[in-house]
């Protein structure tokens, strides 16, 4: 293992003075003819899986194949919200482990991922929304996760710009506050994992597209890429947006429908919004980055597509809903909008683990909540690949549940789950 140059304030100052360049965070390699493990997808899930395989299990003969550039898919297009206040005990436990990993990620990777635990506030505009929030709060508390119901006055204290009067079309009747939640610099998570995986010997291959998966007698034998074939006894599908198509290459059918999810960012303004604010009824979530921009997201587009062109309806809808919540923001301007692809499953929960093809594993179906699960997904998938045993944390997310009618209860929750 080659240790990378350590990042620190001292290092910055020294190199600033001497003009010495930092070494590359990762390197390019030729494809080897075979690897012990091939990971498809260079987003946070694939990179975290590669990192934990190498760092925790000593499996370093690993190739990670990315069709474009690292973090160019969902990992670079999400709104970077981290939280663990889910509805079901299995969901809460799983995401809480992820949040714990996020808390120490900067130190573990020696890469500041800028995890800002500023709190996550979900607003309720109806009795039924409040009921679902109490449900979440109660389940969270039982799992040791900090979640509490707030009344409108407490909300006004937390987010002064929010209109808690009875004037809005959907007045705010309460909220669920989750102090450990927050936002993270999504690209930094990708790069931090990539740098750590590279340092441990994992080969990161960008511009490398998987065009075929070889399966013989029900066992995976390797992949074919635009740069040539690779033999491997284990292939892990960590893609998003195209996960059902990658599964199809291995002959595995998965219950996934792919929808665009749009987001937008405004011009920067001075800091005024400290928490992440979400409204399920209004289908919008808002946070302010350290750079001062407001980041907006909403629910997935109304119809499935692999197209990532933004729509006017999205920005119009977001603007309407944001101004319902915070009417003082009318003169703030939207600077950019973009879209990513979300693989939705029937029960709003991922598909993780084995498939009917031996050696072909999936870590897919992440809907709109993949980024917050990146670390724990990597950790558990690495454990599964390394030990052959499915970790308890992901047992409920197996592919067989759909054919066997054991759907995960997150579907009981409200529509927007960020």
């Amino acid at each position, binding site marked *: 293992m080659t240790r990378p140059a350590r990042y620190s304030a001292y290092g910055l100052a020294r190199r600033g003075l001497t003009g010495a360049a930092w070494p590359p965070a990762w390197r390019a390699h030729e494809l080897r003819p075979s690897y012990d493990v091939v990971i498809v997808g260079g987003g946070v899930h694939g990179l975290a899986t590669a990192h934990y395989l190498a760092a925790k299990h000593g499996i370093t003969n690993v190739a990670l194949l990315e069709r474009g550039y690292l973090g160019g898919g969902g990992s670079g297009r999400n709104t970077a919200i981290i939280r663990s206040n889910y509805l079901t005990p299995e969901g809460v436990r799983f995401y809480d482990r992820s949040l714990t990993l996020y808390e120490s990620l900067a130190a573990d990777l020696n890469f500041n991922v800028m995890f800002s635990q500023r709190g996550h506030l979900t607003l309720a505009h109806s009795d039924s929304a409040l009921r679902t929030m109490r449900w979440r709060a109660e389940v969270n508390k039982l799992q040791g996760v900090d979640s509490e119901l707030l009344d409108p006055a407490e909300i006004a204290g937390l987010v002064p710009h929010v209109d808690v009067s009875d004037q809005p079309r959907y007045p705010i009747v309460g909220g669920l506050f989750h102090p450990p939640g927050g936002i993270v610099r999504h690209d930094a998570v990708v790069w931090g994992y990539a740098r750590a995986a590279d340092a441990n010997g994992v080969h990161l291959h960008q511009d490398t597209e998987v065009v075929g998966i070889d399966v013989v007698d029900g066992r995976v034998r390797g992949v074919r890429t635009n740069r040539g074939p690779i033999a491997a006894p284990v292939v892990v599908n960590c893609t998003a947006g195209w996960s059902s198509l990658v599964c199809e290459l291995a002959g595995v059918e998965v219950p996934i429908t792919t929808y665009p999810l749009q987001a937008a960012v*405004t011009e920067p303004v001075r800091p005024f919004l400290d928490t992440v604010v979400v409204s399920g009824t209004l289908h919008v979530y808002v946070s302010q980055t350290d750079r001062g921009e407001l980041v907006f997201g909403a629910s997935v587009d109304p119809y499935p597509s692999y197209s990532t062109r933004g729509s006017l309806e999205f920005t*119009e809808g977001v*603007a309407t809903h944001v101004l319902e919540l915070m009417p003082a923001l009318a003169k703030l301007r939207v600077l950019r*909008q973009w879209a990513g692809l979300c693989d939705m499953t029937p029960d709003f929960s991922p598909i993780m683990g084995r498939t009917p093809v031996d050696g072909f594993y999936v870590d897919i179906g992440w809907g709109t909540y993949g980024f917050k699960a990146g670390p724990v997904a990597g950790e558990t998938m690495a454990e599964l690949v390394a030990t052959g045993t499915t970790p308890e944390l992901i047992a409920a997310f197996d592919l067989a549940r759909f054919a066997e*009618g054991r759907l995960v209860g997150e579907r009981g929750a409200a529509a927007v789950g960020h």
Partner: protein
Amino acid sequence: MRLPPQPGEAIDRTTAFTFTWDGRSYPAYAGDTIASALAAAGVRVFSRSLKYHRPRGLLTADFHDPGCLVQVGDEPNVRAAHRRVEPGMTVRPQAVWPSLRWDVKSANQLVGKALTAGFYYKTFIKPRPLWPAYERVLRRFSPGGEVPAEPPDGRYDQRYAHPDVLVAGGGPAGLAAALAAAEAGLQVLLVDEQHELGGHLLWGDDGDRAALRDLRGAVAAADGIEVLTDAVVTGRYDGGRVVVLQRSAPGVVERLVKARPRVLVAAPGLIERPYVVAGNDLPGVLLSTAARRLVNRYAVRPGQRAVVLTANNSGDAAVGDLTRAGVDVRRVLDARRGDDVVRVRGRRGVRAVECSDGSTVACDLLVTAVGWTAPTSLLTMAGGRSRYLASAARFVPADLPDDVLAAGGIVGDGSTADLVAHGRAVGHEAARRARGLPPAHVADLEPGPHPELFHGRSNGIVDLAEDVSADDLRAAVAEGYDSIELVKRYTTATMGPTQGKLEAVNTIAVVAAATGRSIEETGTTTGRPPYVPVSLGVLAGRRYQPVRRSPMHTWHVEHGATPLVAGAWIRPDHYGDPAGEVCAVRQGVGIIDVTPLGKLALHGPDVADLLELLYVNRWRKLAVGSVRYGVMCTEDGVVLDDGVTGRLGEDRYLMTTTSSGATTVEHWVERWLQTERPHWQVHLVPMTDAYASINVAGPRSRELVGRLTDIDLAPEAFPYMRVRLGRVAGVADCVVWRIGFTGELSFELHVPAAFGQRVWEALLEVGADLGVRPFGVEAQRILRLEKGHLIVGQDTDGLTQAYGAGLDWAVKLDKDDFVGKPELAWQRARDDYLVLVGLQPVDPAVVPPESCQIIEDGQRIVGRVTSSRMSPTLDRAVCLGLVAARLSEPGTTVTVLLPDGRRVPVLVMPQLAHVDPEGVRLRG
């Protein structure tokens, strides 16, 4: 410094006024921009840069100028070189402390070498507990203006326009294209970003101005051209939708204009590119177009002594304009001959320029004319591409779809006459295509030769808005961030308010040089909407948020009802005393407005088959005059909706749904009819709004309704679960059914909507002696909970199948088919699901809040309370809840965890109903 009147000036010297900048008063003329007025008064520094807090001044002197974003009153990030100044305007610099002149954050320049791109990823890592403090400091360095605490004044709106041809850009080519299309008889919408039509002719020479006068005259005289100035096309979306932001429109702050033109003509001209060289961000470095604009439009002399670096005729013309304005042009460096600028010196502004011949020229102004960027983003949004043309040193449009054309400078170079001719040809072709004729080729305007001048030999700022230098980009490449996307993300180049317009091509060029790849291989300039930042206010428009109200709504308001927002509807939650309302119903009679109940009229010979298919229970034997409760599931067996359906005649039924499920069920029924059973003869008419619905409930309801109707209400004539048609309070065509959601004897009246209030008031009037009172949704919820009637979506969730909702009695698996049947058959064979049960806390005074969890062994969740209330009838807490099937036996004690941490015992009841489980009262 203001010059004497210029022949093409935009200012009106007869209207002078003052405004304030940074706390001081300044003079201005009408027609001035904020920046031109300040520049005329000698102000050179407008902002501090993002990272190093270096002073910044004018660069492009137009909307896209990165150095002059200011706060105007409560509006942040105003483009000072575009926004026209108004009398009394209060303008402030943004994000400086304590002042623009002495900004302590400029200390960042001292440690600048350590603040390389992405420096924050490499530090503040340990110790972890200190990161929140570091983060607060970082946030303090964020740029931008301030958002107000209160909503700003003024309205925004939106408009639909229906032009045949939309021309984006009102320079010579755009004007000519609009004229040609209008002459062909088409409706044209001509949009231009500046305050006046004319494009670069506005700051041109006498010949340019003469040509512009002719074109503007022709446009004004032409039929069918609507002109929007200070307006910009923000995007071209799917389906050919083109969106225009109109920044100044009468009566509104801003307006968004939406159109689907048959043909879009893009004639945006060219954007001048800055030169990347050390010191290129100092106040006093101007683009040639900016210098010409300042002199010719605003009569501002931008400096005293100038050096001009020119590679094209815009730079050459700037030399002439500056000289005429009395600027001492000390040196003209001709890049076409290999002259270059090595570095610009100065601290608060330009003091000298080091030239490639080794000389240093003292000056306060450097004007550069080193190349152009074609703003192709509108074309790439429309599905076209951009292609790099090395000989012209710019990207040009390629592969445009048939309904999009490009005209003028974006395509190629030429004289004003050439641009006009090209515009005319494109406008003519646009008219042909708008008429549906097959596309014909328009001869392209050839791009002229231009040297490739992106960055010089020293380290300059590439992205002035984000303070990203060429060395930052090179360092990113060296660290492995070697594709253009990674470089952008790592350095934030092109991510700022200029959106890449000024810096994208220079960024690509620097990265190309650093990686050894060509510009073409390195990146393209694919546009994404919006082309310019668009306010939330104008995107939201008038924020039309429809609500639905029953015909009795005004009565409720006048009688003190507390409103409840229930989805689309506003309903009375209660009239001040929900418990009293409950007692009135249990002991006498009450009336509730249930208009939001979904109502669907079904006609035809196959309605019974339809009901058999969509409901889990049986319908074929429903007699005329009878009603029945039904439950619908989706194909996965999950409960979708419930309600009562009655048979009004041989082939005539009325279906009711839950209020929240009304639309869903209507579409659900239509979908099964249209797609799975198209041969069935069933006609569906949504009736929710056609009827006002009133439920009259309580032991004296028969007496009350009897006073107003000719229908025989005697128990034997009108038994429970029957429907009758007749007059109520003199209103004909009412539907009355005898059902009992509240658990009491009750009659539900569906009366033609226009007569709703009349019947409502009549009931209250004639029932005064019976003690009739209105009751609201809250009382109804208590009543139904006492009776154990479930609410779909509250006592069930997105996974609750029919057997889990305690609906075993309704599901008829021996039917041949119904929606969801296979899943329900399999569900019945299992016992791994939650079951809905009646629950009563052992302590009658404890009401567990809804959603409290039912737990086992300390913390394992085995169910939850779905509904709970204090029952005024029983004077004790009553609940419904979902529990694990093995705990659903009557008499089982389960543990409920309260929000305050207490664990309380709760008894599972033998049935869902807490009050009158035998149903004596409702059958009475």
